[in-house]
């Protein structure tokens, strides 16, 4: 797998490059800003990019702007955005430009190189990745209202994995369930939450996330 990195902190950038190289990823470019990343990708198209949300020159949402531009230009390129703060507003904005092959992770995830590698594999495979902490937070808040209470413990687990962007097969593997059982649970969750059933995994993430954000 070939990956280009962008982060304005040289220290973090080289650390992340080392970590990815150690897990067998080929790092094609190290960029200090969004513009550098765009140039690097144009010169040598990787399988995925990993970029910081907050970069020069604006130091606000530069990462999201660059992600949107990359996705508009390279349909097959997977994009993983790292963010210091896990904000659902950022995640929703990123997913709205198309949930296929995108990921939004808290920067802390670099602690677990296996998890980071797994996320990269998933986005390159076309899946969606949403940081678990964000999903847990949204779920916790939804539990204070009635709708999520109607779900069984197992259904809540399924909902959480769906929100994180897992496919049916993944959910089955994680929870040791047969594909048939997973489908049954998903149907039940959608029915109880009043969501229209969706066969597309990526679109399902956005629907679930939107539902979770709406109080």
């Amino acid at each position, binding site marked *: 797998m070939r990956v280009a990195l962008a982060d304005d902190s040289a*220290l*973090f950038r080289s650390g992340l490059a080392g970590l990815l190289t150690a897990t067998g990823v080929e790092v094609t470019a190290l960029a200090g800003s969004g513009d550098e990343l765009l140039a690097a990708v144009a010169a040598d198209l990787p399988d995925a990019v990993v970029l910081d949300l907050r970069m020069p020159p604006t*130091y606000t949402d530069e990462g999201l702007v660059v992600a949107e531009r990359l996705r508009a230009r390279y349909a097959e390129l997977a994009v993983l955005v790292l963010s210091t*703060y896990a*904000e659902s507003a950022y995640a929703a904005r990123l997913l709205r430009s198309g949930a296929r092959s995108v990921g939004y992770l808290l920067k802390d995830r*670099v602690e677990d190189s296996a998890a980071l590698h797994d996320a990269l594999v998933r986005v390159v495979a076309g899946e969606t990745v949403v940081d678990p902490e964000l999903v847990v*937070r*949204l779920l916790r808040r939804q539990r204070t209202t009635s709708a999520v209470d109607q779900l069984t413990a197992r259904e809540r687990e399924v909902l959480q994995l769906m929100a994180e962007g897992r496919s049916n097969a993944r959910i089955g593997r994680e929870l040791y369930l047969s594909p048939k059982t997973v489908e049954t649970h998903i149907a039940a969750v959608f029915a109880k939450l009043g969501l229209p059933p969706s066969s597309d995994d990526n679109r399902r993430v956005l629907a679930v996330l939107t539902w979770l954000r709406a109080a």
Partner: protein
Amino acid sequence: MASGGGGYGGGAVSVGRLGALLAGLVLAVVTQWPVWAAAPALALVNGVGTVAFVVTGALLAEHRGQRANGRLLALTGVAWSGVWLDAWQSPLLSVVALVCPALYVTAGATVLLRYPAARLPGAAQRAFVVTLFVWLQAVFVGSALTGGVEALGALGGRPWRPAPVLGPESAAVLATVDRVGAVLLGTAFVVLLARKVRRARGLDRGELVPVVVGAVAAGVALGSFRIGRALAGSEESVTALRLVHAVALLAIPLAFAAAALRRRLERGAVADVVVGLSGVAPLDQVRERLRRALRDPGLEVLYWVPDERAWVGTDGRPADEPPGGDGRLVVPVTAGDGDRLALVLADPSLRRHGRLVEAAVSAAGLALENARLQAGIRAQLEQVRASRARIVEAGLAERRRLERDLHDGAQQRLLALTIQLGAVRTAVADEATKELVDAARADLRCAVEELRDLARGLHPPLLGQAGLGPALESVAERLPLPVRLDVPDRRWSVAAETAAYFLVCEALTNAAKHAGATSARVLVDEAGGRLRVEVADDGVGGADPAGGSGLTGLVDRIGAVGGALRISSPPGAGTRITAEIPCG
């Protein structure tokens, strides 16, 4: 001449006034003596007119800045009476009489065009006056040289004329010049008068109206006389026209008397200011009264604030530049103890009414003194408000800077360290070392999280980037109780958004931590340039802003941005915090 104060006739009979009256009477008798025999009514009206012009002129000349106009008005009367010297049938007097018609018409027109100023306003008016004089003189002298009796006509016998030098064809040309000139110059006069009225402001305009009415009446009378005489057949009808003309001319002295009366009435309006402002009047009311009394809607009052050593306006803000630099009339007001108190800045056109302005200002003196105290307090408040706003802004800027420093510095370093420890963990084989590394990683994870929460609490980047709605959503997501948010999807000023954000954070934290609330509701809307923020919970209530809690800080912070905060928290009935924050 005795000083008549602000207007005519202080009631005193002065030598000057008596002299003017006597001079007018003598002039009237001398000039009207031969007319009296032929047309007594005409002679009487002419005599009255002569005296009226001379006396009114003398009285006007007593008024400040009106000496030249008063003399010119008197001259108009003298020249008017001089026209009738022709009736003496003496060569010398007839030559004098020939100059008089052009002189009285031109002098009268000049006064009417320039009053209340002492000079004609522009080149157009000067050209008009010169043309008027030359035209009239040409017509009358020309008529005399054809043997005509243009100046007076045969009233009680034919006046003296030199032997005719010009023929009848010249008389026809003169008649055309006469009529065409009358129409053109009459129109020009009306146009110049209209322009004058349009440009006049405030008090000047009030005085001008009667004068203009008089001018139009006299102009119409003169015009009708000249046209009517050309058409009239008999000598009797010409005499009747003369009478009408003479009566109409009386409008001019009457008009100046009316203007003087108006000035007196303005003084009465100033007296109303005294009555209206006897008590403690608010700052803007003092200004409003002066504006009304002096008919100057742009009038401003600046108050001297000794502590600041500065002039401040009605709004408590310091005056921008040295007062009066823009050509306005500046009237200084001193307090009872002689200290400087205030400056009244008025329209330059009020310069002519200096005494009236002074009277109004001193009438408002006590109220101004009270108002100065108010202005001082207001200026201090304004200063405190500005410094509070600066402190809050500096605090917020510092928070933003700290958040950025933490984000770009310590956080990135700790995350890089996290990666390195991960590498170490993979590299070592020894179980004991692995455990130590794992413990270090767990501590590091906590440190990163704590640092992140700290940075986020200092200043959430989402607020500046996405606005109040998404930022508050993020706050609500992190709280252990359901929060209903109703925030319009739009942006306000940084100061307003930041104040509203921290208000809601504090209120929601209190609801969750101290009030034991099970739900809360946040409502934000905007009305009239103010952001209205309401946070209500269903907790235990009883919150006391005086209790030194976070609520005190809230009151301070909202106050510093010019907002107001209300806390309603009856025991057992929840807490409702309402704030209004300027956001324009």
